[in-house]
């Protein structure tokens, strides 16, 4: 068990190391001729006005709230799905009921207009 996860850990470290190699290579090989204009923010030739990290209204912020609810609930469904074969019919029905409650939440958000472009 621990050995399996050791491999995952090592693999992720290798996964970090791999893209670093061409980046380092590029740093060695590529020319470096800094120029003030070159390092300006790219805005199709326009000069940047004001700060970049401004507050703006993302019309879709409500989706992330709906997502959080769904994502948490789906985690509960995985054990149910794994155990599905051993479960009696009644327990499967309970799982279905759980999904229906989840769907009820979706319908509620839908009727409230949370899924529309606001």
């Amino acid at each position: 068990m621990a050995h399996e996860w050791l491999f995952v850990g090592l693999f992720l470290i290798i996964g970090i190391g791999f893209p670093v190699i061409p980046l380092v290579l590029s740093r060695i090989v590529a020319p470096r001729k800094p120029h003030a204009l070159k390092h300006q923010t790219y805005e199709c030739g326009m000069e940047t006005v004001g700060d970049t990290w401004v507050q703006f209204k993302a019309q879709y912020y409500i989706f992330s709230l709906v997502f959080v609810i769904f994502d948490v609930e789906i985690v509960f469904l995985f054990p149910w799905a794994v155990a599905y074969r051993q479960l009696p019919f009644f327990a499967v029905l309970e799982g279905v009921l759980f999904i229906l409650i989840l769907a009820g939440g979706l319908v509620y958000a839908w009727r409230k207009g949370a899924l529309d472009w606001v």
Partner: protein
Amino acid sequence: MPEMNIGDFLVYLYDLLGWLLGVIGLHSSAVSLLQKLVAGFVLANFAMLTPIFTIWLERKVAARFQDRLGPNRVGPFGLFQSFADIVKLVIKEDITPVGADKVIFNIGPVLAVMSVVGIWAVIPFASTMVGTDINVGILYSVAVGAIGTLAIMMGGWASNNKYALLGAFRTVSQLVSYEVPMIVALLVPTLLAGSMRMNDIVAEQQVWFIVAAPLAMMVFLVSSIAEVGRAPFDLLEAESEIVAGFHVEYTGMKFGVWMLAEFVHAFTISALAAVVFLGGWRGPLVDQYPLLGAIYFLTKTYVVYMVLLWIRVTLPRVRIDHMNALNWKFLVPLSLAVLVVTALVGKAVPADVSAGGRALVLFLSNVALAVVSISLLAGFSRKLQAVEQVSIDSSGAGG
């Protein structure tokens, strides 16, 4: 020496490496660590170097779709085009814009590659040929893949560019939304196989799950195209709207690493679909020659990849509100319905029915569900059209 077939050859190599290291006098735990490192290195090499070929394939096939020739100058059939591109990207000057958050700016692309390459740790090439067969394989693949969202947000935020920020916001909205139907679609094969372990899921597919769960596969493919962020869901890049989205400020090899992440991701999604729905390494004669499974697996992966490519070059980009509506108003309810129907029908079928019969019943229930959902969708869009027609008529009368 006991007789050895081709499939065990890799296991044999692995053991040979362990034995050699043991002979040098290393401690057994160090030996197993080094063994894992070498195996992981080979696997990561495969995942990282495949794009060199798939990029060429993609450009060539997309060109044919669009009645062009595609790359044909560098090497035979332009095969070495990707190498030329890599050299070009490496020797380009790397520019970091003023005011960028340098550390996060650099971590972004690296993290993006890590998140997609990490999925390959659990993908079985053949029954004996899998990085590590952890018991939560499917959940792990989703969890590691989700780090990519974070990477894109980091890149977009740290660039100190408004277009990049807009792109990153869109990305989070899209990737986070489409994760829901993707995970629910993956719940269906989990439920059918009764396990989250990748090799168990493949072993359970006497009849491929595409037969028992065609709708789940469709939902999975659509939502994973959105997860990769390619056309028709390439809103995060959208050259004509927000120049290039989150990676507008990236130059040289850093841009190349973003591209690498995208192409590895597309290939990884195809591999996942092949494993979970198309029977992975299953095929004739696999029991005698397990290594044959790797060939079957790669063939299936490339078939799925071609389908993704086909969709990419055929469909135009969707509008952002349509993108969200498609997910929350169609794919999420559909995927939940598929899950419920599969769970109920699967239990309703008596236990002594053969795997084929069970798959057939599930297939028919899927077809019924598809008919119902398409007719609902048709009614809905007819209603919408009527409303639009009324508004056009009234505006025409007024003006």
